[in-house]
């Protein structure tokens, strides 16, 4: 590549600003889409993988394995059935079980899920590389109406230790039945984990019982039948059921045996999953869609380049004179070819850079939404080797799509020589 050629290509592109900018915009958008698909894919995978670390088994009511994984760990979707407290007590006593953390889902606080659990949650739950949860402020709940909130809950709602909050029945931001007769006190704020824990409000299992103690078949108490918070304290708040149980084993070797034992449990239809294995099945299941999305984004990139080729071909006729002048001052046909390839490659390189920049802008804009809707953190991070390779391919594709008009120009300049009649 020689310098005069590069400067010629640059000046020629600047001369056709409007076309160049439109071409760059079209390709940059397609590049953003291409990288976005990849970012969301890898972000979801990493984030989900980070969330299940350290739990050997998850036990829930018999149903879909992936469904159990999604609602118990990622707080996506809802359980169709619960596990009886009795089954949980029996399971917890098995000799292979090192620890077990029951969770009870179904309530919400201003769009954040409420998790009824035990203090063991803060002790045993792991995320990322088997890191334990830690507290930014306060500590695990002690009183019946204490709540421990995740980092996002604290940040988005501006809560600090000591604030009073009211839970609502049912998940979702617009849950109407509120438990306003039994307010909670924020007792602890967890440090950020990048997992759905950040978006959870944790209370004790007994508290979940307490706020529903006067409810009848899932309906709020009729007037005159309400039980006050103080009265609830005096009642037996033994949970009757939990949604799922996270289980840690003394030895990994036992995982398959315990899983089998849960799945063949005679007294209740239960399901135990190995979270890592089920997560893999989830990815296998949506792998086809990932491929389809990737294929679509590749098609969009290709469309962008076809547009560029069309524009370049269209300009070829009016550039015939220019090519003849270049030939007359000694440009070789090969250099004419290179000039057009460099122009296309240059446009593609700029488009790739702009596309990557737009991606980060997009991530920055979409992150809160993704975090709140899907509970995973979109990583900004640098470009991975794979993404850089994709960008490299985009630039190569740019050069390749410049090759057709370049070849035509090459052929013409051989035939025309320096004599083009206008």
């Amino acid at each position, binding site marked *: 590549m020689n310098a005069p050629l590069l400067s010629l290509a640059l000046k020629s592109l600047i001369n056709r600003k409007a076309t160049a900018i439109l071409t760059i915009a079209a390709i940059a958008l397609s590049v953003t889409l291409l990288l*976005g*698909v990849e970012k*969301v*894919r890898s972000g*979801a995978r990493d984030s989900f993988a980070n969330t299940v*670390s350290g739990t*050997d088994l998850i036990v829930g009511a*018999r*149903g*879909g*394995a*992936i*469904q159990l994984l*999604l609602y118990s760990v990622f707080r*996506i*979707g809802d359980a169709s059935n619960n596990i009886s407290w009795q089954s949980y007590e029996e399971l917890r006593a098995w000799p292979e079980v090192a620890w077990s953390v029951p969770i009870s889902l179904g309530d919400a606080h201003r769009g954040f899920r409420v998790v009824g659990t035990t203090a063991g949650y803060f002790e045993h739950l792991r995320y990322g590389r088997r890191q334990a949860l830690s507290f930014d402020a306060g500590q695990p709940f002690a009183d019946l109406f204490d709540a421990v909130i995740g980092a996002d809950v604290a940040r988005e709602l501006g809560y600090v230790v000591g604030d009073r909050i009211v839970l609502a029945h049912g998940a979702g931001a617009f849950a109407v039945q509120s438990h306003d007769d039994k307010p909670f006190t924020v007792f602890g704020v967890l440090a950020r984990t990048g997992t759905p824990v950040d978006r959870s409000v944790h209370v004790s299992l007994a508290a979940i019982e307490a706020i529903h103690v006067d409810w009848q078949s899932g309906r709020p108490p009729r007037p005159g039948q309400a039980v006050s918070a103080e009265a609830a304290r005096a009642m037996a708040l033994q949970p009757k059921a939990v949604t799922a149980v996270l289980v840690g084993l003394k*030895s*990994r*070797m036992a*995982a*398959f045996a315990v*899983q*089998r034992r849960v*799945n*063949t449990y005679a007294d209740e239809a239960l*399901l*135990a*999953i*190995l*979270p*890592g*294995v*089920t997560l*893999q*099945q*989830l990815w*296998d*299941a*949506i792998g086809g*869609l*990932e491929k389809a*999305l990737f294929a679509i984004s590749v098609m969009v990139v290709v469309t962008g380049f076809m547009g560029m080729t069309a524009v370049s071909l269209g300009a070829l006729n009016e550039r015939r004179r220019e090519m003849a002048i270049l030939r007359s001052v000694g440009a070789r046909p090969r250099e004419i070819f290179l000039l057009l390839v460099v122009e296309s490659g240059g446009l593609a390189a700029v488009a790739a850079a702009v596309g990557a920049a737009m991606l980060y802008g*997009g*991530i920055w*804009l*979409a992150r809160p*939404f*993704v975090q709140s*809707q*899907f509970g995973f953190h979109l990583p900004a991070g640098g470009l991975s080797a794979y993404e850089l390779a994709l960008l490299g391919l985009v630039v190569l594709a740019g050069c390749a799509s410049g090759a057709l008009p370049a070849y035509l120009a090459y052929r013409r300049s051989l035939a025309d020589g320096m004599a083009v009649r206008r």
Partner: protein
Amino acid sequence: MRILVGMTLIAMTTAAAASGPAAATERREHGAHRHGHATLQAALDGGQLEIAVEAPGMDIVGFEHAPGDDAQKAKIAAALRRLGDAGAMFDLPEAAGCALTEAEAEQEALADAHGQKADAADHTAFHAHYGWTCAKPEALQTIRVRYFEHFPGIAEIDAAVIGPSGQTAQELTPQSPQLQF
């Protein structure tokens, strides 16, 4: 971005719904019974390695009814002998220094759809269980599973692996028979 994430969510929920019942029972002992498909469970903790395999009778001996004659009985006995030969079924890396501690194989009639064991079994399965103690478990990166070579009826093995780096699901085929830890 929104659309992307939305589509991912749709995919997840569809996947959850679609694969629900199948995935739920797949891990159950006598759940899914698909000819050509075997399941394998491998766990490695400290120096201890255990592998359990379940394969449909059809893929091991070519029939699943109770043995009708001496030839079929002999066939089952030979298959059990072969399954019990851990050295023939797996290639473990020498460097790991693994010593076989147990290897056993049995044939079992499967519960039918109604959960009752069928006496005149329509479906049978072979079970094999192997254990090793390894001096250098960190050298156990991959294990070559040789079931495909001995039992051509097996086209695919769904493997669940628990190792030092966590849990994974792997799919083994005659083309890629390596179990990864």
